[in-house]
């Protein structure tokens, strides 16, 4: 392969209690590429993407087997703090989840918890992040309004800006457009393509057109298994597995 590997899942099994949600998943996330994960609801996409920033730790009674690597670092090693991983691997959630704080505070929060106190720096960073997330023009006159007053699409771009402010290396998007209108969706897709210059990106979507539009690599999940993984072009034009073919041609899911 021509690309640098940024993150890697190696022989990953994952259990909620006794329920196995992922079965022996192996997948590479390449640097400065967009990796999409598709598959029907409940097949384990969210479970899988949340392993990359150790988010599943917040769920009780779960078991992880196998390894997740970030630049060769085993992120689940006892020597590694989840907080440090999340400073390098950011996440945007399915439902926009701004804090019940002002627009400004929503962005500055990530900087403050990372120990940054310089006011001028924070202000600059907030502006830069909002600009990068293409929402600056819409909010620059009301940075002190509650973020909850924004529309769904604006909230999601705010959440992306919040993530960008932290300057992670990877961004995980878990169905970021699931609750958005087509115009907001288009804006976010454009943004993802833009962000790829600076970030390695993983995106879960059950919208195959979206996967085809934004991603370089695609993995197809079914019932906790990674059925097929490869270049998006190949997956969509010449799937090797019958099940992948059935899914992308819309015969189930």
């Amino acid at each position: 392969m021509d690309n640098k590997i940024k993150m890697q899942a190696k022989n990953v099994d994952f259990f909620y209690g006794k329920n196995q949600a992922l079965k022996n998943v192996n997948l590479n996330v390449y640097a400065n590429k967009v990796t999409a994960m598709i598959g029907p609801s409940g097949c384990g996409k969210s479970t899988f993407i949340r392993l990359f920033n150790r988010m599943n730790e917040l769920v009780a009674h779960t078991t992880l087997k196998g390894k997740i690597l970030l630049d060769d670092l085993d992120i689940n090693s006892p020597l590694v703090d989840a907080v440090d991983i999340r400073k390098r691997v950011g996440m945007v959630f399915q439902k926009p989840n701004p804090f019940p704080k002002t627009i400004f505070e929503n962005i500055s929060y990530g900087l403050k918890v990372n120990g940054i106190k310089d006011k001028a720096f924070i202000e600059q960073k907030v502006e830069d992040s909002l600009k990068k997330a293409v929402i600056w023009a819409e909010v620059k006159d009301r940075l002190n309004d509650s973020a909850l007053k924004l529309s769904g699409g604006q909230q999601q771009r705010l959440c992306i800006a919040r993530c960008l402010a932290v300057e992670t290396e990877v961004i995980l998007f878990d169905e970021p457009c699931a609750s958005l209108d087509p115009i907001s969706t288009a804006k976010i897709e454009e943004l993802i393509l833009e962000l790829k210059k600076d970030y390695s990106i993983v995106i879960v979507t059950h919208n195959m057109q979206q996967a085809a539009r934004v991603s370089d690599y695609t993995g197809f999940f079914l019932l906790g298994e990674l059925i097929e993984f490869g270049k998006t072009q190949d997956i969509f034009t010449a799937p090797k597995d019958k099940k992948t073919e059935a899914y992308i041609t819309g015969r189930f899911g």
Partner: protein
Amino acid sequence: MKILRFKERLYKWIFTILAFASLFFLMGIVLVLVKESLPIFQKVNFFKFIFGRSWYPTYNPAEFGILPLILASIWVTLGAVVVCVPLGVGSALYLNELAGRRQKAVLKPIVELLASIPSVVFGFFGVVILTPLLQKVFHLPTGLTALNASIILGVMATPTVCSIAEDALNYVPNAFREASFAVGATRWQTLTQVIIPAAGSGIATAIILGMSRAIGETMTVLMVAGGSAVIPHTFLEPVRPMTAAIAAEMGEAPMGGSHYHALFAIALILFVITFIFNVIAEIISRSFRVKLGLSG
């Protein structure tokens, strides 16, 4: 078919009446309180009644100034707040954010059990254990003091505060926690900068309802506050809160006399205070649900 419909309408009426019953009771109580307290204000000026510094209802001439009683109630209530806020909010935070599911399953019922202990038992505990202890520690003539009442009331209000504060924390959507962790915040940062501010007005509601529980509590203060109707100067003096005055004196006040009416007036004032507390709590908790984007 007809019978069925009749039955249904009957049920509807029964439940409507039941639902309105408490409203009628409330109105009945208010009416009685107002009617029975009015006569005292023909004798004593309303402001003299509230701000009068002497409560000598059985002297001749009698004095009806309830400021000592009001201050006693305020003192023990604030004292109780000092006890029940750290205890109640602290345990709510622990239950919600730190305790595992199994710990919570054991601890929460225990806290709620605390709420079901009759107040006379708390009072008994105060008299038998706390009173001699305070007397010894502070070298007091009596351990029956405002401090004693504050501590016991604080413990009694803790389950109320804990359980409502815990509900408030539960209302904070998990999405906020995840969002905070996702930008690299620690558990402590998440708790202090996201969860507590988000649940803040819910926690305030919990505290106000705890206060309202403390100020209305009668049996305990009757037993442990000491009962002296003078304006308190320190927490180490005996005091007579409004509820204790009513409970202690109602039996000896001749029915229809000024003392009797004065006690009703105290009850009316107490009712107004708790009513205000509850209205404030309701307003705050509404704004809380709006703030979190839950239904208003």
